[in-house]
């Protein structure tokens, strides 16, 4: 109990420390570069894989690497399902990973409170990419009765990014809720990182 009490006091002390990058009631700063870099590295790996698969789909690369499932990658990557949209699914994936990487990098170590919009966009981009990947993983064996190794690798990467990306979104949403409850500053301006002053110093 005593230890919990002391931790709580430290939390309050942080609240009054205007320069702190650690959100009130948190133990770490989710916007720190050490927190964001691993996600950006994953996004770049996903981008590389998806770009390679897209190059195969458009015939730039003649063969595709497939160590486990024989004809699997070829069947999946040239399937009608992969061409439902105007661009191939791997192209869309590559664009998604690139957007993840860029929105993961933009902003400084305080961005959960200085740029909530980029944190929210980042989280919104990471989520759907994972959802679409998993949808395609479910579809592969059910529709075409085979798998595609690099497609699975891409899906794993997109899922690994979700949890680590969401802590920052939580910090931003808690901050915005604090601004709204406080009532002194515009929530809209806080979302776009426009307001400064007393409130920001407190948060």
């Amino acid at each position, binding site marked *: 109990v005593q230890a919990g*009490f002391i*931790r*709580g*006091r430290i*939390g*309050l002390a942080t*609240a009054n420390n205007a320069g702190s990058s650690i*959100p*009130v*009631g*948190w*133990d*770490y700063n*989710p916007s720190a570069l050490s927190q964001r870099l691993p996600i950006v590295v994953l996004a770049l790996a996903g981008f590389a894989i998806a770009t390679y698969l897209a190059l195969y789909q458009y015939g730039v690369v003649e063969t595709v690497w497939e160590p486990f499932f024989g004809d699997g990658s070829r069947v999946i990557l040239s399937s009608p399902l992969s061409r439902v949209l105007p661009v191939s699914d791997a192209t869309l994936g590559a664009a998604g990973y690139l957007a993840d990487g860029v929105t993961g990098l933009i902003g400084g170590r305080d961005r959960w409170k200085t740029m909530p919009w980029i944190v929210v966009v980042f989280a919104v981009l990471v989520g759907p990419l*994972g959802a679409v990947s*998993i949808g395609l*993983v*479910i579809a592969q*064996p*059910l529709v075409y009765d085979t798998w595609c190794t690099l497609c699975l690798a891409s*899906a794993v990467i997109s*899922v*690994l990014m*979700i*949890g*680590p990306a*969401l*802590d920052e979104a*939580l910090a931003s*949403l*808690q901050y915005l*809720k*604090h601004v709204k*409850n406080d009532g002194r500053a515009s929530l809209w301006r806080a979302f776009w990182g426009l307001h400064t002053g007393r409130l920001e110093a407190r948060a």
Partner: protein
Amino acid sequence: MAAQSLVAALGVWMMAAPAVLVYAGTAELVARTAGPIVATLAVIATSECTRDVRLANIPVGLFLMAAPLFIDQPPHAAVNGVVAGTAVVLLSRVRGHVRARFAGGWQSLWRATDEPHV
């Protein structure tokens, strides 16, 4: 973390089970739909901040346990599904060690007032 990693492994196992245990049809459909969902939710739940996502795997595990009641499956597929489903339900109930504090977490967003943070 350890419990959720095991659940993720169970999800991957369900994806592979129809090929390893050799069964097809609706039983395969069940395994290959539930498997990726279980694995995905469990991987997300390994992060401390999103640990509670583990709870979403409980209905999927219950579905795997109940599937043989209303879906015709070969016996070995049914046994595998029930055992894996039971393990998913039990392990998904384990919160495990969460070191970091998140100022009340996601639930705090739905509460009317700010967390006192103490």
